[in-house]
């Protein structure tokens, strides 16, 4: 009898061990390990869902008009199209083009100038910027505490319905971490589920020669900062990372963006000055302005023929990930409509 009980307990215990698998950020094998420390903020479906509500909720702004998604639309791979400079509360124009949001678990600095060192703290910047949401985290906490829907969402995510700035920031971070984009044609080729056309293959080889140093595959960014020779826009006088570190060597350095999902994320560059990929390639071919800290690969411009530029663009379009862009799990939660 005792034996039966002991065996029964052992079986239940083992089954429990098998059933309990902490959730992990999923990504395919050809992608390197992510950088985000999930030990401090565990990856959990209910927390992602809470973060999704917060991301789409205009109550994060002072007058309830602007949400994160206002400038980071899911249909643009979470970038802001149509405007070279993104605009926020009361139609105020900002200083830069809102970058696309995906594969953020691999990044350890954020914003075009690297002003933010941790994804959890990034959301504070747009919440408090007077041209973006013009609010502050205390106001956000107070508003959410009065909401009929949030206490339950916090309980599901964290085990109690306490609403704090730490919990808000971590849920927003986890939702953004869940935005992985690794299902483009390029990814399928890497997993031997598809093959490049002849033109795409030519473009890929040209890309490896000319672009891969900075836009390193498979993330298509080396996560670093560089001066890519853009002439200074004197109406903005944006010195990028240099304005943060106050070091001359960092002047005109901007975060190297990923080249995934380019079809959805136009216009390009930190100030959205180019609306077409052909303009970007023409810049690298013959528009580069020489300054002391210009990236060395661009010293003489990129020697590209007209045909080669077309081939490179054909390859770049294989980095579009429509499944990511139209993934319903990332989209507006309808329960927010009447909140």
């Amino acid at each position, binding site marked *: 009898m005792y034996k039966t009980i002991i065996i029964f307990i052992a079986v239940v215990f083992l089954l429990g061990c098998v059933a309990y698998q902490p959730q992990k950020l999923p990504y395919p094998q050809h992608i390197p390990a992510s950088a985000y420390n999930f030990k401090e903020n565990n990856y959990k479906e209910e927390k992602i869902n809470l973060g999704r509500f917060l991301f789409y909720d205009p109550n994060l702004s002072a007058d309830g008009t602007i949400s994160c998604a206002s400038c980071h639309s899911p249909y643009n791979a979470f970038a802001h199209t149509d405007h070279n400079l993104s605009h926020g509360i009361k139609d105020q124009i900002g200083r830069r083009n809102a970058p696309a949001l995906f594969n953020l678990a691999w990044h350890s600095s954020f914003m075009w100038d690297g002003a933010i060192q*941790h*994804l959890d703290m990034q959301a504070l910047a747009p919440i408090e*910027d007077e041209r973006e949401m013009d609010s502050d985290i205390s106001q956000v906490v107070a508003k959410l505490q009065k909401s009929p829907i949030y206490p339950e969402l916090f309980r599901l995510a964290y085990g109690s319905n306490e609403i*704090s*700035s730490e919990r808000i*920031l971590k849920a927003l971070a986890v939702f953004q971490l869940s935005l992985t984009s690794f299902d483009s044609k390029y990814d399928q080729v890497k997993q031997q589920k598809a093959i490049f056309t002849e033109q795409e293959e030519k473009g890929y080889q040209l890309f490896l020669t000319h672009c891969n140093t900075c836009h390193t595959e498979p993330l298509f960014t080396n996560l670093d900062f560089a001066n890519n020779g853009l002439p200074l826009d004197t109406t903005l006088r944006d010195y990028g990372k240099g304005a*943060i*570190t106050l*070091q001359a060597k960092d002047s005109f350095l901007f975060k190297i963006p990923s080249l995934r999902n380019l079809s959805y994320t136009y216009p390009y560059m930190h100030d959205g000055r180019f609306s077409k990929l052909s303009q970007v390639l023409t810049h690298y071919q013959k528009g580069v302005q020489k300054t002391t800290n210009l990236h060395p690969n661009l010293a003489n411009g990129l020697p590209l023929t007209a045909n080669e530029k077309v081939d490179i663009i054909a390859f770049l379009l294989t980095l579009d990930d429509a499944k990511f862009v139209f993934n319903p799990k990332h989209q507006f939660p309808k329960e927010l409509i009447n909140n």
Partner: protein
Amino acid sequence: MKKCLVFLFLLANFVRIFAQQQLNFQINWENEPLILSKNYFSNFNKDSLKIEKLQFYVSDICLLKKGKIVYKLLPKYKLIDLENPNSQQIKFKTKKKFDAVQFNLGIDSLTNASGAKSGDLDPRLGMYWAWQSGYINLKMEGHSPICTSRNQFFQFHLGGFLNNFYAIQKIQFTVNQQNMNVKLQIDKFFEQVNLSQQHEIMSPNQKAVVLSQIIANSFKID
């Protein structure tokens, strides 16, 4: 008689073990507690000034014996606020003997770069820069007629944890008693800072590091 001695011995030990020890942070102007919004006269600036906000972080407070850490006080991070007397006392209990106390003025770089936090590090407390990463180690705001800024306002938001502008300051004092009163003599700061020239620091830079050092040198213990 013997019993009585034993009792006294036990009592003394009991008191030693269970007595609360205390580390106090006082903010003074010329050896008197600083009063919020009161007008003081700065001899160096030759003008009056009043302080309307003064908050700063101390972190990693520990007790040392012969240069070695013997006890770490909790909490690890403490926001000291001129307006909140409770924030200025840290209670602790230890049997360990010590001859020095050490703490940081400010928040270390690792903590600065490791995500959302609660308690005294909650960004709601206004001691975090939103537009860029990083805690504000010390915030002092007020007015002085000598300031050329709008409304003669001065604001020193001192912080920074990257590269050349790491503003944290390590402070150490030798001590010979259980209760310690660490005093920030804020008048000393205004003996070295010319308010007509310098009245606004709101981002990490070289000046923030220099002013943080001046603040650190304005602490004493007794």
